[in-house]
């Protein structure tokens, strides 16, 4: 069987999907990154190799997410794309006609506006991360409820409490305050969802024309409370697509297919990279007062990539090719 590999290395999760030639998602793996992107990616590849039949041929590899360059080097990517483009490509393929994508991940949230299948505008959270997955995770842990139960509990609310959602720190203080006053847990959770949605729409979605169909994806889309809060705030139906939590990886696989449509062989290093010794090291360049912290990736002791230098002194010296238009 032939197919494409999509890899999304995010701050919180590392996702891999295998997509066959017809665009069908055959396997999807969702792992926690836990601050060890290289190790977790290798682990993901190992698990994927186990699940896939032996006669598999990888015709193309795409990487995305904040660790896209790293993942691209480790796995041998044919296309390295930012997460906005990847999410947009995935949503517009899985949900034809989509005009608005709400995406909330571990560290950032984005809104993507599409018209006629083409991205026309987008925004990412800038100064404040209030309302992202990590914060919900933290609050669930503090309240000692499994994150999977968060949404279900929030849906039980009858009178959501108003929570100050402008800033994650203040939101937490306010939640504690409401809790001490004796409000019920479901009402507080539902109130938090509403506050985060308000914050998202005011900061990320400001000035954007949100038209249906609206798709909600990213890890936080698993939270039914957030979905309902979005529907109430927008007055629109909000779709959570299948594979909502690995959409970045799906997009990367689709982009890999698009890239390889013109022919050529994939740069995929093979599933054997799970056993290869990769090391990320670094040094401070003393060529100028910028003192750039240069990252160096080695494979079995050989330098295969460098980045982090402002002037290109180190990154250009390897002839490393970034993705061009």
């Amino acid at each position, binding site marked *: 069987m032939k197919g494409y590999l999509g890899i999304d290395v995010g701050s919180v999760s590392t996702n891999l999907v295998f997509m066959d030639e017809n665009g069908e998602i055959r396997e999807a793996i969702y792992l926690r990154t836990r601050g060890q992107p290289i190790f977790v990616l290798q682990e993901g590849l190992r698990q994927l190799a186990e699940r896939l039949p032996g006669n598999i041929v990888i015709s193309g590899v795409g990487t995305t997410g*904040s660790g896209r360059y790293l993942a691209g080097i480790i796995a041998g990517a044919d296309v390295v794309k930012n*997460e*906005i483009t990847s999410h947009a490509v995935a949503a517009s393929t899985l949900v034809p006609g989509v005009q608005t994508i709400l995406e909330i991940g571990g560290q950032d949230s984005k809104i993507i506006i599409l018209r006629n299948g*083409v*991205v026309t*505008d987008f925004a990412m959270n800038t100064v404040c991360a209030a309302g992202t997955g990590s914060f919900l995770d933290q609050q669930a842990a503090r309240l000692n409820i499994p994150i999977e139960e968060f949404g279900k509990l929030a849906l039980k609310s009858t009178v959501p409490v108003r929570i100050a959602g402008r800033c994650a720190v203040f939101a937490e203080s306010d939640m504690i305050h409401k809790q001490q006053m004796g409000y019920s847990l479901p009402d507080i959770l539902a109130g938090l969802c509403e506050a985060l949605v308000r914050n998202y729409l005011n900061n990320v979605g400001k000035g954007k024309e949100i038209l249906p169909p609206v798709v909600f994806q990213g890890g936080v889309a698993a939270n039914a409370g957030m979905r309902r809060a979005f529907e109430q705030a927008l007055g629109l139906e909000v779709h959570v697509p299948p594979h909502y939590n690995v959409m970045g990886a799906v997009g990367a696989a689709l982009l890999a297919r698009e890239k390889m449509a013109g022919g050529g062989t994939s740069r995929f290093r093979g599933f054997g990279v799970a056993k290869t010794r990769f090391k990320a090291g670094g040094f401070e360049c003393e060529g100028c*007062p*910028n003192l750039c912290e240069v990252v160096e990736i080695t494979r079995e002791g050989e330098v295969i990539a460098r980045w982090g230098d402002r002037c290109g002194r180190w990154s250009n010296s390897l002839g490393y090719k970034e993705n061009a*238009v």
Partner: protein
Amino acid sequence: MKVTFPHMGHMWICLAAMLEYLGVEVVVPPPTSKRTLTLGARHAPEFACLPLKLNLGNFMEASELGADTILMAGGCGPCRFGYYAQVEYAILEDLGYKYRLVVMEPPQRHVGELLSKIKYITGHSSWWEVVRGIRFGYQKARMVDELERRAHYLRPREIHRGSTDKAFKRALREIIAVKHPRDLPQAGERVRRIMAGVAIRPRPVLRVGIVGEIFTLLEPFANYDLERRLGYLGVQADRSIYLSEWINDHLFLGLVRGLRSRKEACRAAPPYLNHFVGGHGQETVGSTVMYARQGYDGVIQLLPFTCMPEIVAHSVLPGLSTGLGIPTLTITVDEQSGEAGLMTRLEAFIDLLARKKGVV
């Protein structure tokens, strides 16, 4: 007297040429770096914009090299910059630096005062000499701008990644080395030859205009080398403000004919922004309109965090973008900016433009 001034891109080349021609001893601050930013940010007010912090850092580093006199531009609001010379000077005084401050106010308001400041700096030189010095500096600014435009064209088309930047640095050294106006033409010839040596191949490129606040536009350290990054992403960039154009507009009051002028940009701004809002706010809006009319694929607005005029312009851009069908992206920079976030947005924006145009 050892004169220094803040960095703003390649402005130092023009200023040093002029002052040294007039026999003034110049201390060029070390190139703006992380150290400059660290020094400046430590002592500047938190909510001042990035230019103030970098200026301050430049002065502190120049002092280490023996500078004792600051030459700085003034201004008359509403942008806060007009007050920066005084604020920076007060901070330096508090820190114990021994500097003399010479502020050049715009000639529209105090011509006599400006002339006396020039006389103070240039000392014994005759007015005729002063005029020749200014002309020399201006000619260098023109050459540097021409060189930058050439690099914008070459970068997305170069065959070997980095070859344009290498040639650019060599060519810049040629311009810097010229000590007398009579040697400029030959240097210009050498610059052209160096840049002609960059191997390119024809390919479809996107064209993106960069608008916004002048310091952030001109200083690559402040804008994370935006032009170079765009070039590497396959984009031919154009900047709405070049130093020589600014000098002609603001110091020569438009004396040199045939240059792009802020007046056109301001004329193009209505009905989106009908009034002067300080800084380059109106130019930002007007230039975006002009880029749209010239068929550019997109526009990027640059501003330092808390920049009021650009915030006004920013709020005008969405309507303009829909009205004229030109995508815009706003990038705010300050000392907290993260490079990764910037690159993600930039790449996504360029993808958007490429897919819209169908050149993926």
